[in-house]
């Protein structure tokens, strides 16, 4: 219990002092995870929508595959990206290993199946509801996908937030491809791992509390944005 109280005190102290190293870590954490989710969603939303409406051979297999990939182990993704970006790897010439960009790539891979698979479900449900109307209006499937994505945007914002939750919480992938280098690739989760290995358990837990707080503020902001846009447009 004492350690827990200590951790909350530590978290509070960290916030109050506004330590510049910590701010740097928080900022990088947000940049990496938001970039990864933005890039992944840009591709996964339309793909998930298309998967809901188009029928083609192997569709069912693809859906099962996508659903399974939601549980991709971060360490495996990290290793995969490491081998790709290592100097000996196929993309070694880019020199991206141990950079924030490498971390974005790894998180992108982790987030993509989550957003695509959940989008597929959301759009498929909407298609059940509005499909007939759209068809009767002569809307092409492609146009229907776009319409339903727009129509489902509230549900889809939760989908994107689920992807964000995955990105910001994972440590296995970013540790391998980022290397936890101070002032370059150290994010909240790798900093927590580092402090744990130093035996600074209260500090580690304090950072963990901050990370949860960070997640709460992002989700809170998204929620307010949603309320606001709902209110503005009735």
């Amino acid at each position: 219990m004492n350690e827990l109280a200590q951790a909350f005190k530590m978290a509070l102290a960290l916030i109050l002092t506004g330590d510049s190293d910590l701010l740097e870590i928080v900022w990088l954490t947000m940049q990496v995870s938001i970039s990864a989710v933005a890039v992944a969603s840009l591709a996964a939303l339309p793909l998930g929508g298309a998967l809901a409406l188009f029928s083609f051979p192997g569709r069912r297999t693809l859906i099962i595959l996508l659903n399974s990939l939601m549980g991709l182990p971060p360490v495996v993704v990290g290793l995969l990206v490491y081998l790709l970006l290592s100097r000996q790897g196929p993309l070694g010439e880019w020199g991206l290993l141990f950079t924030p960009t490498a971390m974005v790539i790894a998180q992108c891979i982790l987030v993509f199946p989550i957003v695509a698979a959940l989008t597929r479900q959301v759009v498929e449900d909407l298609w059940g509801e509005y499909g007939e109307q759209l068809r009767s209006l002569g809307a092409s499937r492609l146009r229907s996908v776009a319409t339903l994505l727009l129509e489902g945007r509230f549900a889809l914002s939760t989908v994107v937030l689920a992807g964000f939750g995955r990105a910001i919480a994972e440590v296995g992938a970013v540790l391998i491809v980022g290397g936890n280098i101070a002032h370059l690739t150290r994010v909240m989760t790798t900093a927590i791992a580092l402090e744990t290995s130093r035996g600074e358990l209260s500090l580690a837990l304090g950072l963990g509390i901050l990370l949860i707080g960070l997640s709460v503020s992002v989700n809170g902001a998204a929620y307010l944005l949603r309320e606001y846009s709902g209110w503005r447009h009735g």
Partner: protein
Amino acid sequence: MKLPKTIPGRCEQGTFLAGIPRAGALRAGTLRAGALRAAVLLAAIVLAAFPAHSQAGDAPDGPAILLASTTSTENSGLFAHILPRFREDSGILVRVIALGTGQAIRLGMRGDADVLLVHHRPSEDRFMAEGHGAERRDVMYNDFVIAGPRHDPAGIRGMKDAAVALLKVARAGAEFVSRGDDSGTHKAELRLWEEGGLDPVKSSGKWYRETGSGMGATLNTAAAMGAYLLADRGTWLSFKNRKDLDLLVEGDPRMFNPYGVLVVNPARHPHVKSVEARVFMEWITGPRGREAISSFRLEGRQVFYPAAK
């Protein structure tokens, strides 16, 4: 990144959805501009603000090299003490990746690091012999210690022979936690077992527990279990969660722990920054570096000693 002018379906929807009965729910033509536009804007801001030095290349204000090293040197705080001095002297920023010695050496073999600072001489010599390194030098040394629960069920406190002490732990069936991760410390531990003539790996999962983790994680495990372990003195002294663990055995010359610096061979990996890496090697083995290493203190004690000239 510009805001997309034509979001899919945006222009058309006003017309083709106009007559739908539930238009209230479906009137996507208005797009409720807020949410989507704000999301795109946010993504654009974040992407644009990405650090200019997001390439592992140089720092914004000078050259930078990548040093693959061991958790023992990073966790103890040694690098935080000496690297700012090196930067002051040379203008070169050193970025540290802390791994086990085995992993650090493999990183060097793949050309993913410019310089290594590790502690397992046979692996270092192999690295050089196979042509992965351009040059190797002795840097510094410290020693390993055996720690264990304060009440010391195996009764090894104060022993001077580390190999015999480990045998006693095994005979007592007391729990021993091993790094099990191919690190320099792990290899040193295995050599001590070998000298005692006992293969602990046969008892893996019983009294012998391999964590496959770094020094800190292994210390956390041992502290929680009340188990024995071999640790490097630097990490031991800087570790804050010792709980019931005590330092029990030290001073056996076989627990000598020498560190070497190795410059990755530019002939093998043309992209490595061998010039800067060499500057680092010269500095850390030279008078300024030796002075920096000697002046590093943990709990008022010197932890690393510069190698003999």
